[in-house]
């Protein structure tokens, strides 16, 4: 469970922030949120898919890291098994939220239930009622991530407008077990992409959308590798 609270220089004066390169909080996450700015780098490590957020029904982009809920095939007790680490994973347990849309102001919040956020080990967050240099650096990257999240939403809205998203069901046959379907995943419709008019095609160039589209398509070659991890 998560318990997101705003960071407060009074209330959290004594708190520290620890980093854990093993990322235990995603040990059983079968999808990890990605932003469009990460697609090119992420595509060499994972299949990039689109899923609906269960709370809002809106699409978001994710790295597919497991083949059933509760399974992360890139996570090992010895360390992360992929070249790329998604920004949200690195920023955890911090995140930046915009209390009013378009206001430009962000609040830094923290998952207060995370053991990384505690009173005994890690970097100090506040000194003399002010955020430390360490906190400021972490806050900047959290804000950068929140800003790319807006770009991701624009990118997905564009894909929906152009009818470029399509539902994909992965049928998986684990050794010695019944086949099952992994549903709720969406990908880019290549056929539809080929049918775009020149004008629609060019409209994807904004915010590097063409690169993102192709990164998603190329990331599909990671799928057999992901399935292969299951056998290991």
């Amino acid at each position, binding site marked *: 469970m998560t318990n997101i609270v705003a960071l407060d220089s009074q209330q959290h004066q004594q708190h520290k922030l620890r980093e854990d390169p093993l990322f235990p909080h995603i040990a059983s996450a079968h999808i990890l949120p990605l932003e469009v700015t990460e697609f090119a780098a992420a595509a060499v490590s994972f299949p990039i898919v689109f899923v609906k957020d*269960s709370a809002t029904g809106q699409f978001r982009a994710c790295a597919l890291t497991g083949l059933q809920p509760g399974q992360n095939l890139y996570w090992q007790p010895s360390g992360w098994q992929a070249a790329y680490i998604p920004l949200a994973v690195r920023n955890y347990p911090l995140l930046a939220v915009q209390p009013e849309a378009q206001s430009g102001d962000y609040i830094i919040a923290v998952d207060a239930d995370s053991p990384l956020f505690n009173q005994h080990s890690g970097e100090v967050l506040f000194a003399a009622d002010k955020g430390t240099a360490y906190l400021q650096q972490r806050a900047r990257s959290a804000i950068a991530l929140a800003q790319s999240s807006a770009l991701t939403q624009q990118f997905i809205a564009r894909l929906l407008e152009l009818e470029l998203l399509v539902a994909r069901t992965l049928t998986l046959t684990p050794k010695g077990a019944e086949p099952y379907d992994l549903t709720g995943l969406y990908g880019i419709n290549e056929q539809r992409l080929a049918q775009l008019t020149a004008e629609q095609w060019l409209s994807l160039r904004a915010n590097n959308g063409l690169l993102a589209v192709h990164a998603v398509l190329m990331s599909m070659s990671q799928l057999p590798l992901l399935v292969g991890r299951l056998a290991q």
Partner: protein
Amino acid sequence: MQTEAIRSVLVVGGGTAGWLTAANLAQSFNSGAAGAVSVTLIESPDIPTIGVGEGTWPTMRATLQKLGIKEDDFLRSCNATFKQGTKFINWQHSELPGSYHHLFTSVSDPTQFNLAPYWLQGRAGDNLSYASAVSAQGVIAELGLAPKKITNKPYEGVLNYAYHLDAGKFAELLKNHAQQKLGVQFISANVLDVTLAADGSIAAVVTDTAGTQQADFYVDCTGFQSLLLGKAMGVGFRSVADTLLADHAVTIQVPHPATDTPLNACTHSTAQAAGWIWDIGLTNRRGVGYVYSSNHVSHDEAEQTLRRYIGPAAESLNARKLAMQVGYREKFWHKNCAAVGLSAAFVEPLEASAIFLIEAAANMLADQLPALKQNLPLAERKFNSSFLFRWQKTIDFIKLHYALSGRTEPFWQAARAKSLIPESLQDLMQSWQTQPVSAYDFAHVYEPFPMESYQYVLYGMGFKQQLADPQRYRQAEKAGMYFQRVQQLTRQLQQELPPQRELLAKIYQYGFSAL
């Protein structure tokens, strides 16, 4: 002249019937495009719509989708909620309280595999109602949960569903959409006169502010007045007041006490001494009405009954009384005019047949209106025989609810008098005493109510069925799997489905993803 083309349609009258029909025709004929058949709607700025038809069938989802209306826009603009069936309260006995559900979802389509014989044998467990044995939806509706999640596509449900809607706002939505997106032309004027040609067909419609309007084909959506088909063309009205005894309704709109008042997930229909009360929850208010027989209760008493049902909240609210002409036109289509809505027929709104039969008529009209005038007579015959069948079956189905009741008040005793039950229904009820309801009892493609609807009502009302040859039902194991599946789904969906208001709030905030 007989080879002339039909290039223009004039819909006379707005409301749900007029705008649904105009929108459907314009969509089907591509009326927005140059050179296409034109669809014009003329509506009086002075005559209010009746606007009591506020419950739909699941067919409405396909209708809205066909018209290109987004589900979130519809829900938002019509204060609409999800309807998962009807809960009939106290229909069986006068003294003993009880209720049952008529639902939209069953675990097995009974025309493919009928679970009823196995339920009768007790294979679903003792004391489990038929509805709870074959569907998870009753429990879900009772809990006030929605039939879908925010991650579902527009118009896609985890469970089958229809809507409750504000009929006035719905007509408004259709009016805007039909003009802006579908190319319907709109004239605001009062109809003063309807003139006939020598052959008895409609020649023109004379208005107060828009001159004389002519078209190749006319659709009469003028409500109970039936200005074109009834008044001008003289097509007679066949009353069924001797079969369906309720002839009036008194209605009150009850605002919700708070913006978070929980919403019923199905229509409530509660039996009263001389009729029944509908109770429909929209997002902002309830629409409540007592349908009664004025031969069995005075208008004042009926209004008092309705106010008692509502409770203290009714004190400051106005009631509206409506006289209902129960029955149908001898023809629904005559020469160059078809009637849709109240101008064609009306029965008490017990099974939300009003809007549903408007949709059906608009669909058939859109498909069958010929391109050439020479083909009108055949289309007319098909339309008339189809809708005569549909209305008669609708009357049978409504009558079934009364025929099965054991209530003791004079109205109820009169309502189930055998002499007043249509023979077609008597035959079916007789056969169902000893053999299961069968798909072959509903072999007509345009049967308005499906087999499962009859089963929900029959078994819900405690119909005594003693199957004459129980040896025939040997698939107990398969039935058992279905019954287990229902119990599993009932538990699972209680966890997964959100309360109606919670889902509606998310829809207002995010909308459904188009995919």
